[in-house]
């Protein structure tokens, strides 16, 4: 009796699944279609929201603000080299940080130029004005600079530390340190001369 009932239940299940299969397929196709349509609309909305002119103006404003906060030498460093250096104060051994826009803060030893580590930190604006959490580049640098100069320990403790080379290639960082050294030599050395025109001869 039980065997007969079980067999009947199995047969019924198989029959129902065969009948339901086309409906199921249709539902899956419909859901997939709706999902792709929603993704397409979202993408279109993002394209609509992105305005390169607005981003450029935002960056200009951010640069002006950064310039008004850091000293003249730091501003020159950032505008000419693309990063800022901040001295570290927590260790006995002298070290410093390089601040890049939207990249980790890179710590290095001053005596050897050895990379000490990357401190990954972000300043996401959860209100997402214009659909993004990312500050303009120079505002990101300013936020890192303010947080680092105000409370280095707190910022470093908040950051996720990684070995050097994870996001900023060590070769690039070394190259930047060489560029920085050259730049400082140029600034501290003889007073700047006006660039000579091609073909001109210096007066005796």
């Amino acid at each position, binding site marked *: 009796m039980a065997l007969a009932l079980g067999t009947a239940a199995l047969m019924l299940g198989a029959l129902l699944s065969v009948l339901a299969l086309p409906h199921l397929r249709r539902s899956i196709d419909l859901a997939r279609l709706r999902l792709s349509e929603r993704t397409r609309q979202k993408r279109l909305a993002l394209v609509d929201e992105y305005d390169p002119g607005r981003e450029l103006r935002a960056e200009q404003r951010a640069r002006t603000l950064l310039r008004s906060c850091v000293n003249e030498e730091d501003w020159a460093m950032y505008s000419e080299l693309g990063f800022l250096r901040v001295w570290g104060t927590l260790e006995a051994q002298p070290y410093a940080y390089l601040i890049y826009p939207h990249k980790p803060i890179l710590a290095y030893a001053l005596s050897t130029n050895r990379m000490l580590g990357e401190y990954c930190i972000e300043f*996401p604006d959860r209100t997402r004005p214009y659909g993004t959490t990312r*500050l303009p580049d120079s*505002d990101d640098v300013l936020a890192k600079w303010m947080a680092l100069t105000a409370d280095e320990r707190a910022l470093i403790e908040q950051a996720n530390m990684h070995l050097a080379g994870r996001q900023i290639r060590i070769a690039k960082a070394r190259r930047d340190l060489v560029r920085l050294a050259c730049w400082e030599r140029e600034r501290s050395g003889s007073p700047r001369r006006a660039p000579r025109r091609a073909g001109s001869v210096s007066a005796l």
Partner: protein
Amino acid sequence: MKLLRVKPGHGEVVLAEGDVAVPEQYSRLLETFSRELDAGMWAAVPTSTHSGKREAELVRSFEDVPADAERVIFFPRAAGGG
């Protein structure tokens, strides 16, 4: 004193401006300051030392803002990145 906030896609925005010595303006500044802090922002005051070195000071209440501060900059709270 100016209260500024840096924003994605915009740069800085002036949230409030006023003289802390004027009671109505003080209360408006205080209200804006508290609102930004409640929204999870950090507040920093750019300063400079006697030697001319520029740095910043994080402030956690309006009373901590130096009396001679010209501006307070609000920026999103730091979060560990990937």
